[in-house]
């Protein structure tokens, strides 16, 4: 039997000796047995700014209505395929941590108008058209793509510096890519490439 959100909250409260509804950081990551579904119990987490749901087996993003203070949504190491059902938190969300999932398509990301940080290593991003979609997220500063097919091909072909210019060309406001600051030379090269 997988853990429900309610089970996971109870384990968190016992472990930390806190009341989850009052906490700014709610740690449901690495729950054993793993959580498979997000559900409406999440709406009780009114104070939550950082929801940690990483290291579970969640297949679908859902049930975030009512989390009116959510700034960091951490869903790394789950089984998620789509960026969806984020409308309820789109205004407040600044960081989405979603590495080690199954995302091949970034449709839906354009709704996150205040997103500054997107960590999505080890997903299935294989096409530049997916990076083009990120151009709509104009506050994005910090992007992590290591371990996606797009990155791995460049690494294996020794063309990582070209890959960086290609990303920066599409996302001129980026300050950090794959953990490394974007430097002046890269910015100039990307600008020249944009023409």
């Amino acid at each position: 039997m997988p853990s429900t959100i309610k089970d996971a909250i109870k384990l968190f409260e016992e472990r930390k000796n806190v009341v989850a509804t009052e906490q700014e950081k709610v740690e449901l990551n690495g729950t054993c047995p793993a959580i498979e579904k997000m559900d409406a119990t999440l709406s009780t987490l009114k104070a939550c700014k950082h929801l940690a749901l990483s290291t579970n087996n969640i297949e679908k993003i859902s049930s975030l209505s009512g989390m009116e203070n959510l700034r960091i949504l951490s869903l790394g190491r789950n089984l998620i395929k789509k960026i969806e059902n984020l409308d309820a938190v789109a205004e407040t969300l600044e960081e989405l941590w979603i590495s080690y999932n199954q995302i091949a398509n970034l449709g839906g990301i354009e709704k996150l108008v205040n997103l500054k940080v997107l960590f999505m290593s080890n997903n299935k991003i294989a096409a530049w058209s997916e990076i083009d979609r990120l151009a709509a997220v104009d506050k994005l500063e910090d992007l992590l793509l290591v371990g996606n097919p797009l990155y791995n091909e460049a690494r294996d072909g020794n063309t990582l510096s070209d890959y960086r210019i290609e990303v920066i060309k599409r996302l001129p406001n980026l300050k950090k890519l794959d953990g490394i600051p974007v430097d002046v030379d890269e910015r100039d090269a990307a600008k020249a490439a944009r023409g």
Partner: protein
Amino acid sequence: DDAERDLAAAKPALDAALSALNSISPKDIVGLKALKNPPDVVKRIFDCVLILRYWPVLDKVTWQDIKGFQVILGNYDMAVKMMGDMNFLGHLVNFPKEQINDETVELLEPYFAAPDFNYESAKKASGNVAGLCNWAEAMCTYHTVAKVVEPKIAT
């Protein structure tokens, strides 16, 4: 001042990480690769190294009972592949620790929480490669301290 005191606090963690790596020899790695089925704690220690280096871990999280407590099943095939690189230890010595992010630290937490995830029990199970356990924890400590210190230095 504050920033310097905090940095000094991070120094022992970094020293511990380096001495942990220096305690491992290429011969230890060869010995480990020869084991068909190494102790479970070793597999989990290698999962932490995979995550710090953004290498693949198993897609589905599987918990299993080891000596009465629940631990995460490791991706040991990938660990063996990683050890196949002749410069494996060199990569760890030169690991870009300033590139670690908060998400990575969170992904390591469930491993650190296991009661047997410490140098002593790993050493008992596997000898010198237990140093990787200290290394992984030191990398997280470094990131946590640096995050507090960097804004203070910037001002």
